[in-house]
């Protein structure tokens, strides 16, 4: 297996020109010019086409190392969680399905502590609209009562702010703030969902 596994999606049909150059050579083989100079171009083609015939040192095969790198990522993440995040809470932010909200940023305070403000450019907003969830925090949070103060700014609407009191029930969990575009009656636009998290 060769190691030249890089993908050039936009060049895929340059390989299709195999047929082109092969046929060119086929055509040129039939062309025998009356003067020597006319054969020079053919020589050029022939030399180029023979380039692969020479035995040259092969590039490395990175497949195994690349696979090991993924393994490292998983192992280190797992060790990190076991050793440093015994009460891990992953705080996410996302939109409800089919949402068309134009979110610009989200600022969150958790128990009075400010988390880094998350700004969303066009690409990040698209990722949210496609169902993606952004990570706001990945840290230890003790089981018990907590207060989230959230401010969401939007491009075309007034900012939305909400204070959410919640109780963390599981030692390791995922908490997501979900922005509902059309909240029901007596519903707040921001809702919190909790999932249990495994190692």
């Amino acid at each position, binding site marked *: 297996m060769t190691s030249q596994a890089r993908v050039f999606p936009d060049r895929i049909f340059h390989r299709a020109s195999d047929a082109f150059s092969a046929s060119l050579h086929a055509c040129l083989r039939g062309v025998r010019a009356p003067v020597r100079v006319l054969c020079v171009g053919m020589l050029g083609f022939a030399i180029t086409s023979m380039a692969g015939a020479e035995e040259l040192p092969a590039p490395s095969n990175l497949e195994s190392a690349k696979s090991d790198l*993924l393994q490292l990522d998983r192992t280190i993440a797992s060790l990190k969680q076991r050793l440093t995040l015994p009460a891990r809470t992953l705080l996410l932010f996302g939109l409800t399905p089919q949402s068309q909200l134009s979110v610009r940023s989200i600022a969150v305070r958790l128990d009075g502590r400010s988390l880094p403000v998350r700004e969303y450019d066009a690409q990040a907003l698209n990722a949210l609209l496609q169902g*993606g969830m952004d990570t706001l925090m990945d840290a230890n949070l003790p089981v018990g009562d907590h207060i989230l103060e959230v401010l969401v700014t939007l491009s075309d609407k007034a900012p939305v702010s*909400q204070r959410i009191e919640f109780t963390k*029930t599981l030692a390791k969990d995922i908490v997501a703030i979900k922005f509902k575009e059309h909240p029901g009656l007596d519903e707040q636009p921001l809702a919190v969902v909790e999932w249990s998290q495994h190692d």
Partner: protein
Amino acid sequence: MINREKSHRYKLKQLTRLLGIQSAWSLTFGLALGASLCTSVSATPLEVRRDAREPGFAQVMYDYYQNHLYDALTTFLANRQLAFNAPGTGDIFLSNLYTRYGLPREAEASLSRAALTDVTSSNRNDPWLSYGKLLYQMGQDSLALNFLRDPPALLTPKQESERMIMVTNLLTRTEHARDAIESLQSFRTPIPYYRKLARYNLAMSLLSPDAVDHLLSQPEQDAQREEYDGRAIRILDDLMQDKVPNLVMIIKPKPVLATASPTGNQNKGGWLSWFRSKSDSSQPLGSLIENREIGNKSTFTVSALSAGDVDDPTLTPDDVSKLNDKIALSLAYLRLKHHDLEQARVALRGVKLDSLLSNQALLTSAHVYYRQGDFVRSYNFANELSKRNWADPLVQEGWLLAARALEDEHDGSAADHYAAAIQVYKAATASINQFDRDLDNLDVLATFPVKSADPVLLGIPEVPAGTKAGLWAGLLERSEVLAIIQQIQQTQLLQAKLKVYDKDLQDLEALKAKVNPDELDDLKATRVLLDKVKLDFQKAELQDHKALLAQIRATLKQSRERLDYYLTEALLGLQRVNGKR
């Protein structure tokens, strides 16, 4: 009431603290929060769910749609619960990420896991085709052929066209041109560009040496060769005039029979008529595409029934123009082979002057005129060519042909042209020699800086500006050189990731005193793995550098040999011209 009061006091305290913070954003936050606090807020009940696949997949999607593909892959792998995604969509998605990362074995395993699951064609087919492309581009011809010959159902017209082009290219490449011809002859796609490309490839396959039946006697083979050449010329001629076979209506809806059904229902256009037409479509038909099941909402369905063309918005005018140039140039070569110089010249007019193939077109035109004895026109074309980048071998040959045309025209300036050509060849040789010497100090990553932070998404390396641009441009046209440069760039990004992992591991190792023996063992094993990967990348770096230099030097050697040849010819020409004087 007391609680509420407490809560309000807390809010005010927060607000005061907020207002005390210097940043403008904090001020906005504080004011907005303050405003909202005046109106509402009660505690939000927490909704608890067990299935953590939703947030896991949502995190992957967030990375994926931001083009952070490496992060998407690692996040996916970190969320083990996604592996139990019943419909197989997760496996298909994972296969796609593995393919783009460049791990074909893992990609295939994920695809296989998803094979027996119920995955929609829109989710399945793109990753399926991407994996096929990966095998195709890695030069694993037999694997790629076997894979691509067994397509899933409901490929879109574009996917089916790409698959077909790859399959027939593979067949031609593996000396099965006759099979390629057979497939291409019956191939119809509703996308006009691919219809044209398929016809062009059919012409190219007909020209392949393997197209002729080698079991025939020599005279019969010659006759077949002539016939195939004639067919190729006719196809290319038609393509030059944009004559592409129309898409015929491949599914003919049968009229609903007026006779009563056994149940006595007429069912005119009712659900049974749909059932009948579906049954008809599943009957085996001649063409590959006709054998495909037709699904709802597919662009193919609409097109197949209406026999209409389907636009492919991903195609640019440049793609169409490049294909037209190739068609024109191929036809010209074919005409030239059959000594039909006039028609060759006509065909060459179809190549755009600013296209990538224009140097070939100019040189061929100069050759055609030369062979027709029209030395003045031959000189004009060769001279036009010689004004272009001399690093291109075609331009170098143009210098020689221009001088030769002048010589045969008995033009007094022939000697000067030969002398100029000699200077060009000497300068080119000197430049190549200098380039070769400089290679020892080549810093690949400084010459081709990495412009992406994601090891999965690497663009095509740009030709570096400066005096060596011409030489680099020629080198980058070779896929071997390009692939190694990209691999070096990817290694650089992977090493950057490795540094981050190393730092994280050091932080964890610092906790050694607090961890239990099992965790200590895990830490040690991780360190061993990290050191191994580090060493692997270092070795790969050296090996790739060596391979790159070898590829470049092999190309330079060929260039030198060609220049030596041109130089000899030019010196001989100069001698002849001076002798005649």
